[in-house]
């Protein structure tokens, strides 16, 4: 993670978010960032896939200039999240009362999403580590302090309780996060190592 990008690769917002210019954010008005969140290049977030079921009237298409209502949030991300290169966040969709609708994807704080992973969960807690090339199926619910190993495929609708370590296709519980393992989920240091003037990793 401690690669040094050329200056100006990131847009740094006043809330401390670092969004790579090369990231693809569709429907930004429906994407909420908590701050201090890093979005690396080639990340894709589908903010345009909003829920349609609560409103009878057809939603304004994402590129229409009308500011979207607040309840239209498609993807909300907490603080100190880290979206690695090439990962993709996508709201889950399903038929509800006979109508197809997308549901918001909510993400807590200190969530690491590994490179190339695709996340379609309904909710992800805080202090969650999703490895590289992992797939989190639609409407999965992931609690706090969960580690999803590289390449795991979390099946749709799966619930992963706190302190779980899951892996495999489909993902299953293979271990529990030990008491001493909680600090490892902290992403403050990692946050500092990227951006336009990255800090070195503290030893």
């Amino acid at each position: 993670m401690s690669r040094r990008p050329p200056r100006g690769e990131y847009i740094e917002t006043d809330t401390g978010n670092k969004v790579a210019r090369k990231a693809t954010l569709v429907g930004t008005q429906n994407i909420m960032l908590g701050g201090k969140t890093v979005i690396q290049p080639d990340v894709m977030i589908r903010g345009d896939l909003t829920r349609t079921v609560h409103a009878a009237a057809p939603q304004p298409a994402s590129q229409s200039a009308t500011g979207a209502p607040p309840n239209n949030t498609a993807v909300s991300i907490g603080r100190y999240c880290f979206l690695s290169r090439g990962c993709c966040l996508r709201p889950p969709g399903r038929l509800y009362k006979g109508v197809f609708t997308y549901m918001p994807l909510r993400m807590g704080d200190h969530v690491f999403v590994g490179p190339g992973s695709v996340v379609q969960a309904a909710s992800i807690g805080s202090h969650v580590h999703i490895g590289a090339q992992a797939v989190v199926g639609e409407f999965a619910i992931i609690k706090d302090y969960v580690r999803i190993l590289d390449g795991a495929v979390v099946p749709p609708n799966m619930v992963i309780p706190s302190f779980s370590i899951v892996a495999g296709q489909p993902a299953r519980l293979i271990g529990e996060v030990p008491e001493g393992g909680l600090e490892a989920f902290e992403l403050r240091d990692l946050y500092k190592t990227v951006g336009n003037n990255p800090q070195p990793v503290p030893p």
Partner: protein
Amino acid sequence: MSSKRHSILPPVSQTGPKPPVNFSSTITIADSALLTGTHTITVHGESVIHPRARLDSLAGRVTVGRRCVVQERATLGAAAAVPAAAAAAPPAEAAAAVTLGDYVTVEVGAVVEAGGTVIGEGTVVGVGARVGAGAVVGKHCTLTAHTEIAAGEVVPDFTVVYSNGMRRTDKRGVAELKNKGLARQIDVLRRMIPSNPAKFA
């Protein structure tokens, strides 16, 4: 996100030639979709091409059936990862690179290699799955995420490929229901995804 823009869509270098296209009037195609190649790309009625989906007709024609959904970063007609030796017959390759039946869903980041590859009606190609050149996937199959179908392999109808290549038969008999669901999904997507077929014409 201070910017007034409603999307950050960094331009992607349009590599390769602009392919001749044959779009139905009812399709939805995001203008950030990527179409390259020399052969014709045909998309039939009510199909949806998500942003950043990639259709590559260098190796041959790419045909997308009715009411298909090609999600972001999915690639149709990618050059075969491993040159399909015996599997795909070269002439067929030139003819058709990829053919999707109706009601096919190609999910995020899935790759369908060129070379006479066929995906049957109602089949779902899961996230990050890879269908090798010349493979023929039957109707109403489910390729779960990260599934790899070897080049030239034939997958019978109603097969579920899961857990790294384990196979079983889908006995739920929900084919038509899935199609119905897909239709509903497409209704919604058409309203959400700004379509810009003109860009590719």
